[in-house]
Each structure stands twice: as C-alpha cells, then as structure tokens.
C-alpha cells in the first residue's frame, strides 16, 4: 500500500551515484527487543561504514529504552505489543515494500552481525543475484558459530530444507542476516511466518519458486541478553521447525 510519501523517514539521502546513475535504495531492518545496551553501538557501526544505508529499527514492544536510544540515530517503528521476531521483521519488510526500496537487509539488534558484512551480501548479490542472500556462519565456520547442540539441530533443519525444496543449497537456515530483493520483499510483505521465521520463511520462499544464495560471514557472540532458544527449548524448536517445513512442503505456498 503506497502511503503517498515521497521521502519516508528513512530517506535522508539522494541515493545517487557520482556518475548520476541511481544507486539501489537499501533498507536495513533491525528488529529489537530490549536491546538498549547494544542498539546504539550497532547504529554507530552502521554509520561508520560510510555507506548510504537507510535504517529502520523495529522496537518489538521493548520495556527498556531501546526506542529512545535508537531514535537518536534512526527512525523507529514501535510495536505496541510484542509480536516476536517474525512480526517485527515483517513490519520492516512492509515498510520496505511501501517505501519502494530495492533491497531489504535484516540484521539483528543484539550486535551479533557486523555491519561491514552488509557489503559482502551486496557483492554476493551483484555477482550471483538471488531473491534471498543469506549471511552464513557455516560456510567458512569463522567467528561465533553457536553451541554444538544447536549446530546439530541446524544440520537437521538444513537436511530437511535441502532435500524437500529446490532453489538453493542452504547451510545456515537460522541466520538472521539476510538480503531480500524486490521479489522477496513483495512476497514476505504479504505473508511472513510468526513462528520460527528464519527457517520457515526459507521453506515458504523456495516453495513459491524464489531463489536462495549464501555467502560466508563472520558473526559475533551477542553483546547483551540471552538467546530465547536454549536448553530443552532447542530440541522442541528443532522438532517444531521440522514439522513446519514438512507442512510447507505439503501445502500450497501462502
């Protein structure tokens, strides 16, 4: 839905290259939940890259000062109630669709993703365009690669996705660092999974015929907070994700 704005809150630059050709408009979607301690640093790092990225922090019903900290450097979409990572990311994707961005890049607000890796994703897209380009921890296995138990669970999810769907070979289905092109933005603006969004969104996308590519990136251990998926929840998460992937294979694309 076009809200009729010529320049949204995020459009502060002209997006023009030196040679006059229009550079692609890139939106960084940063979903956050109680990340007041890390979001300021992250936005500072993004600004330090010197690139003309537009940013949108999606505050997923935080009870701390995430919005206030982020608002100093970025537009903030504040959700009245916590919707979870899926709802928060889709908010950003809808914004990208309405503001006519060429690319939407999701990065986590907890400091795990190095903003310098954004250029890696873009270069990978230029070299080999795909609708979704994932920053994978498991191609080079550099940097923080999660716990052993989680890696085992991820391997099962990888096996399920690669055997049930075509359109790309995946090594890191739970990576929260991904680049979406216009087709993927339009697709996910209509429907995005609320539960286990990272792997399930890939299943939906590949089911609908979108292509997926991966590029190695290094990730850092989260600066603050704890993962919501830990301990016994990891096993429950894996079983439920596999169930959803199977369901995505059996039904028509949303």
């Amino acid at each position, binding site marked *: 839905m076009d*809200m009729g*704005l010529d*320049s*949204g*809150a995020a459009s502060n630059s002209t997006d023009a290259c030196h040679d006059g050709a229009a550079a692609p408009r890139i939106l960084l979607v940063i979903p956050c939940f109680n990340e007041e301690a890390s979001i300021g640093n992250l936005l500072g790092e993004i600004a330090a890259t010197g690139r003309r990225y537009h940013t949108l922090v*999606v505050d997923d019903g935080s009870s701390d000062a995430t919005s206030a900290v982020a608002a100093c450097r970025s*537009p*903030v*979409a*504040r*959700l*009245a*109630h916590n*919707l979870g990572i899926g*709802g928060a990311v*889709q*908010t950003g994707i*809808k*914004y990208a669709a*309405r503001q006519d961005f060429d690319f939407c890049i999701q990065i986590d607000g907890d400091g795990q993703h190095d903003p310098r890796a954004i250029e890696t994703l873009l270069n990978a897209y230029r070299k080999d365009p795909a609708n979704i380009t994932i920053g994978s921890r498991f191609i080079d296995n550099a940097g923080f690669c999660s716990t052993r138990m989680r890696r085992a669970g991820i391997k099962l999810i990888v096996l399920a996705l690669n055997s049930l769907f075509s359109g790309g070979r995946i090594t890191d289905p739970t990576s929260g660092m991904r680049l979406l092109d216009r087709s993927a933005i339009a697709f996910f603006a209509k429907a995005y999974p*609320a539960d286990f969004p990272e792997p399930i969104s890939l299943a939906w996308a590949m089911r609908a015929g979108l292509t997926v590519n991966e590029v190695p990136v290094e990730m850092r251990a989260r600066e603050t907070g704890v993962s919501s998926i830990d301990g016994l929840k990891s096993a429950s998460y894996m079983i439920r994700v596999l169930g959803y992937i199977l369901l995505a294979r059996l039904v028509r694309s949303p």
Partner: protein
Amino acid sequence: MTNVLPSTETVIVISVFALIYMLMLLKKTLRGRLDLYDFLMLSMVAIIPAAFALFPSIAYLVSHLTGVVFPFVVMFGALFLVVFAFMHNMTARLHRLERQNCALIQEQSLLALELQAKKSGRSDG
C-alpha cells in the same frame, strides 16, 4: 439392552434446565454477544440431554444402532462431538484473530512512523 425409562422428575428437571439455559443463550444472542453458530452449538448442551430424556425410545434406538448398552453413554459421546466441533471452530477463529491483531499492530506502528515523518517534513519547511 435395558429399557428403563427416565422418571418423571428427571424429565422435568432436564427439560426445565434446557429451557432456562436456551432462553439465556437466546437473550445473549439477541444482544449480539453470541452469534448464531455459538448459539446453536452451545444449545446442544441442553438439546441433546433433553431429547434423550423426552424421547427415550429414540435414545434406545440410537444406542442399539451404535452397539452401546446405555443411552447416556451415547449422549455423552454426542456431547463430546459437539464440544470438539466447537473447539475446532474456535481454534480457527483464534488463529484468524491473532493474524489480524498482528497486522493491526504492524499497521499502527507504520502509520505512526509515517505521521512522524510528515510532521518532521513540515517542521523542516
């Protein structure tokens, strides 16, 4: 197969309960607090026992057809099916409401953002 008929007191008590309960449901439906589907499904809690009490010959026929000795077992089975169907429908409605709620919250945040952008656009001249 037993052919014991319910006593008059039992029939009266069940019928009065069914009547009062259905009147309450009808009142709520007319006030818009329940829709027609809710009214029909919730009424089954009264209609099925009343039907079994008022028409015992049919109750015995149904229990005979299903191979169950006691008609009240068939009655509870029927009530379970009704409750299950109702729960199935409620689950679907709940999921739909969740999706709508999520969409509304997203829209509200995006509209607030765009309103803020327009205001700052106006204040910048």
